[in-house]
């Protein structure tokens, strides 16, 4: 079973994602901030990371920069409510930049695409 790390500070949203993605056959581990996400990444075993950008403490862009410093082979999806971070070239460390939507279809499609590689 493919293992996904979901970094999201909004608890209800992360539970929704967890439920939906578990239903798709993935194991989903939750982290509410960048620091705890980094700890989990260090322990290894993830096939893909989905991260929000605006979070308390380190933001998602700092998080992916730190992850890249450790290992570059885990696909990352940025999942944010904001278009504006597209102007930040550090987001290029991610494999996809998605805008949060009530439908998770785009997210699910992108996950399938990245895990198929």
């Amino acid at each position: 079973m493919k293992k996904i790390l979901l970094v999201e500070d909004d608890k209800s949203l992360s539970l929704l994602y967890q439920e939906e993605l578990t239903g798709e056959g993935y194991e989903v581990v939750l982290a509410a901030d960048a620091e705890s996400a980094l700890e989990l990444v260090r322990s290894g075993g993830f096939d893909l990371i989905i991260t929000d950008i605006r979070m308390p403490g380190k933001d998602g862009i700092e998080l992916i920069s730190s992850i890249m410093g450790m290992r570059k082979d885990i696909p990352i999806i940025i999942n944010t409510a904001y278009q504006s971070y597209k102007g930040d070239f550090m987001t290029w460390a991610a494999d996809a930049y998605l805008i949060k939507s009530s439908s998770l279809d785009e997210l699910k499609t992108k996950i399938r695409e990245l895990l198929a590689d």
Partner: protein
Amino acid sequence: MPELRKDILTGRWVIISTERSKRPDDFRPAEISEPKKESPAFCPFCPGNESKTPPEVYAVREDNSRPDQPGWTIRVVPNKFPALQPGSPPPKKARGSYQWMEGVGVHEVIIETPDHNQEMSGLPLDNLARIIRVFRERTINIEEVYHHQYVQIFKNKGKEAGASLAHPHSQLIATPIVPKRIKEEIYGAERLYRNQFRECVFCRMLREEQAAGERLVYRNEKFAVLTPYASRFPFEMAIFPLRHSAFFRAINDEETVFLAEALKQALGRLRFQLEDPAYNLVYHHAPNPQVSEKAWPGIDSYYHWHIEVMPILTKVAGFELGTGFYINPVPPEVAAEYLRKNESPSS
């Protein structure tokens, strides 16, 4: 008393506040805006991270190196997450009284050097000339392949200027319409050509500026660096080719070396005299010749391409945004005198 100065081309007025003008030293920041001695944990533009960018569309690289692998000196890649979708110009459509079109364009990033900690002004002259030739080649390619109306080449340096990465890079965005700023300059130049001077207003102004010398920062055989008469920003500079030409794409190889030297001088003086402020640098040139010839017949006679360098030393606030009227606390003559003082040590 402050002085109101009019930009002859655009008709824009600027308040040059000579009375309370700040001394150039007032703009030296307490600390350099962006300490760059340490590389970040990760940079998508650094060699070895090519897989994190879209496939390159152009590169200057060692003969035995492969695309999207290290071994490059300049690399051009499409924006990974572009604001405009790649493609050729879509048709204009109507929605009641309003016009709209699909958000199509070309957005490319030119990574200027593999060295994360380098500065454009610190690059060897040949490398900088090569970057300018890459700008030229990409402009020609995009105009001829995609037929977009305008190719905007620009550089944001430093956080305050909108740069998100310190790794030296410029950007290019081709748009399906000619931007308003460019149209204003073209119409201004055309009006002055037809109704007043019967010659290119830029050539005339360059002659006057070189004779007066008070706003001249640097010149070589083929380019001049000036602080514009109606500068909007403290230490704003403009770089003009001395050979009349409307089209940046017409720059020849020899001229790219002289432009590289002028850029090194302009940016090097900013860096060392004002302690490395953030800046925006933009190329202004005639739109795609396929468009220019129809929309502005004779544009090659009256328009003159140039580069504008805008250091970020003050904040644009309500008055400027509300009126388009800028207040510049450093008269351009004072700025030029200060910038002239020393040659860029990087040259």
